[in-house]
């Protein structure tokens, strides 16, 4: 009992410690951590599909990238845009796109679903790559960060690294709480039921398609939140953020951390981004760092073969039960 309360308290401790981070560190590691948190939101959004609805999407980068492009296209050049409307609008665009593609891809299952999600994300990639709409293969710059004003007062300029970091931290924690809440609700239980036994859910009277579509749309919207923040952080978007490597990377984060646990996605994002940084560190690996993807590829294959439950699964194996149980109550 005492133990479980301690574990329930753990996420808050982590958030608290992370919030203090800018006081001790600046620039490089703060930027890196911001990136980790953004990827954590992205990974959690995919875990909702893969780990909780039983839908393996290999095209999740589409929604991530689309939000970035939405911001870039909505923001007037060289002028600032308000976060208050550009963020909801970008997320809305993603949700709408997810709703439309969802109605199509959810007509398929299994291998088909994987291929079709990938194909639709590639469609978006080619739209932005081949047309002038989004600056072609060069992409678009976002010269000024969005503003957060309350009346005339600036709540905190996002040009300042720590402000942006805190915002992203807040959104990550918020996304986590939101998803926890949703997954514990009747709706969330129905999603889990669909993941476990879709056929029986249907026989019980659940309109499975509607639930899946709602989950798909929510997931796309949340990926959009992450994509928006990524675009703000980097100050530009190009077709690469829509590429299937992005989809593969985020899927890897979900599995690496442990799918169907939510917090695993956060751990997975952390581990994956860190690993990427380490492997591509020229100071440590010299010329080999240039080919870091080789090591990454081998690592991914090893995880797929030998660590299907990810880090969360490992933790469970070694006796320490994680804070949340997924499948049963």
């Amino acid at each position: 009992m005492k133990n479980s309360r301690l574990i329930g308290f753990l996420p808050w401790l982590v958030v608290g410690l992370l919030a203090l981070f800018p006081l001790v560190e600046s620039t490089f590691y703060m930027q890196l951590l911001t990136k980790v948190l953004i990827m954590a939101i992205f990974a959690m959004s995919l875990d909702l599909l893969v780990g909780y609805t039983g839908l393996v999407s290999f095209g999740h980068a589409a929604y991530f990238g689309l939000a970035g492009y939405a911001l870039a296209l909505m923001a007037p050049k060289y002028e600032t845009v308000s976060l208050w409307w550009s963020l909801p609008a970008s997320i809305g665009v993603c949700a709408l796109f997810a709703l439309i593609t969802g109605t199509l891809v959810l007509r398929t299952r299994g291998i088909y679903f994987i291929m079709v999600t990938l194909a639709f994300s590639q469609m978006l990639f080619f739209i932005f790559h081949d047309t002038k709409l989004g600056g072609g293969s060069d992409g678009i710059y976002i010269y000024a960060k969005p503003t957060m004003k309350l009346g005339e007062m600036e709540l905190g300029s996002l040009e300042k690294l720590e402000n942006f970091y805190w915002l992203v931290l807040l959104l990550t924690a918020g996304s986590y709480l939101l998803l926890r809440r949703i997954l514990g609700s009747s709706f969330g239980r129905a999603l889990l039921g669909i993941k476990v036994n879709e056929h029986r859910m249907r026989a019980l009277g659940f309109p499975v398609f509607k639930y899946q579509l709602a989950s798909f749309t929510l997931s796309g919207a949340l990926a959009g939140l992450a994509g928006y923040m990524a675009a703000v952080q980097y100050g530009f978007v190009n077709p690469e953020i829509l590429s299937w490597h992005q989809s593969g990377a985020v899927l890897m984060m979900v599995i690496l951390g442990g799918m169907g646990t939510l917090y695993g996605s956060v751990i997975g994002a952390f581990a994956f981004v860190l690993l990427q940084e380490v492997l591509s560190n020229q100071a440590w690996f010299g010329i080999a760092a240039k080919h870091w993807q080789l090591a990454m590829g081998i690592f991914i294959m090893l995880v797929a073969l030998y660590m299907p439950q990810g880090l969360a699964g490992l933790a469970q194996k070694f006796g320490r039960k994680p804070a949340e149980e997924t499948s049963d109550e």
Partner: protein
Amino acid sequence: MDFAFFLIQLLNGLQYGLLLFLVASGLTLIFGIMGIINLAHGSFYMVGAYLAWSLSSMTGSLTAAILLAIPLTVILGMALERLLFRHLYQRDHLYQVLLTYGLILVFEELRSLIWGDDVHGVAVPALLNASIPLTDNLSYPVYRLAISGVCLLLAAGLYFLIQKTRLGMMIRAGASNRDMVQSLGIDIKLIYTLVFALGIALAAFAGMINAPLSSVFPNMGGQVLIICFVVVVIGGIGSVKGAMAASLIIGLAETFGQVLVPEVAGMIVYVLMAIVLVWRPEGLFGRA
């Protein structure tokens, strides 16, 4: 558009479609029979193209290069099936996706280490390096016709293999009932190895013969893979017939799209896929 021009586009579309068929048929066979989704299938196309380039610059002949490269890719396919894919048959598609995605990264980096990151052209074999004049200023390259011919021959061979031979019967039985095949004492493991190697070799061969037309370049496998996914979705998983029909449809649609509506040509295949998904989610020749 006059007739000669139309004819050229038609031939180009068919040639492109037939080439797609070589890659997609292997993909769909591996899906259908072994239940494996192989994202790295496009990498074998790339490996084929790079082998054709490097071996032909060593030997001075594309034909010699292809003859050398085919056994190499078959061995590669068999080795990978034994070492990696065999562990995936009973696993969730999720892990197949992850493993084969990792494999793509490995292939791309090995390609970069062995062959570098430059774009290379491959010479058309001298014997086929000619054009057939159609009008005063339009002509059609013999090499493209040769590709189409070879692809058709292979397609016919594949049809014969699957429909008429004992191996093909086992393949078809394996697709429909794994346990039955095993209870008949047929070595399903061997069949899987052979099917996988066949699929890999077909993809690699497509890369080889297309190298003079497309040249060889990094990440060339990715594009082909995605288009072939669309082909498989449209044709129906596991259906070689469907793969043929869908390949030709896509080949023609893309080729004519690029001529008639170049701005949106890249979109056409996806629109076609969306239509098929709405109309027949299991694919044109898929089992409902």
